[in-house]
């Protein structure tokens, strides 16, 4: 199956998203240590500030892509029965897409 995320593209995506995930995680940790939010409202305002909202949105998109490539690789390695494989990949894809929808809702629709 030559979908949009096969071979070289998947491998490159996994590595590029890994760099972004690592970078943003460090940025987030630094903020929490340096500028610890005093209350939930302070935290909420920070997350919804334009810069953080966009970069955090990107973080979660990167996370979804990274997770898809990673877990799909594990399934392709170890699961050989066709039914099991299709089922597990479907469950994985649904789970990740559902997370994506929820992400959009949290950051954009009902912040």
């Amino acid at each position, binding site marked *: 199956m*030559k979908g949009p995320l*096969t071979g070289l593209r998947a491998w490159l995506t996994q590595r590029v998203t890994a760099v972004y995930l690592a970078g943003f995680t460090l940025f987030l940790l630094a903020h929490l240590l340096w500028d610890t939010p005093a209350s939930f409202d302070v935290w909420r305002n920070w997350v919804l500030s334009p810069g953080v909202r966009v970069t955090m949105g990107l973080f979660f998109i990167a996370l979804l892509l990274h997770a898809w490539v990673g877990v799909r690789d594990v399934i392709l*390695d*170890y699961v050989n029965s066709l039914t099991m494989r299709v089922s597990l990949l479907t469950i994985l894809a649904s789970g990740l897409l559902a997370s994506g929808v929820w992400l959009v809702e949290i950051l954009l629709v009902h912040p």
Partner: protein
Amino acid sequence: MQFSVYRYHPEVDDRPYLQDYEIVPRPGDVMVLDALFRIKEQDPTLSFRRSCREGVCGSDAMNINGRNGLACIVPLSVLKEPVVIRPLPHYPVIRDLIVDLTQFFEQYRSIKPYLINNHPAPDRERLQSPEERARLDGLYDCILCACCTTFCPSYWWNPEKFLGPAVLLQACRFLEDSRDEATEERLAALDDVYKLFRCRAIMNCTDICPKGLDPAQAISVIRQTMVKKSV
């Protein structure tokens, strides 16, 4: 010296078993292959492949104390007893220490292991500079013994679809050859989910290669070449 050797004769045995032998090495018996010949003196029914006895043909590749190697160049002195000798992992056993390498060689053929150059042949050779020739070092010298491929966990999980380190090293050999003109086609052929990308850089291959080659590095070179050509 104590040995425990994998035995299996499909026409006679229900299942494989390990048979114990004790041999007295003679002066000059330095390598595992020498010990196998002593064992064969005791038990002529033991079967194994061997040819050059100097580590260049790859015939006597087998699993010695859990690590793949060429029996003719694995010294007896470093081995813990009883020395357990088994055939190469995960390939069908034809008999005793002899495995069926058909799939290995089919995968080798599938990467078109020959120069593809559609220009008419020159009067003498297709010339290469010393630098261009140097890019083949460490790639052309593979003896196709299958030690690396049969030691790769990723190959164990997907032997029909993942090509394995030896075949990928040979693919790299032709990609790096300045005289070859089918680079695009070769790279396109490798760009799918299984053929190359099951490689996880586990690096068992580089660890075990009896000729000191680096298949993991070759696979990395192929990946870099793919990225360069597509980005």
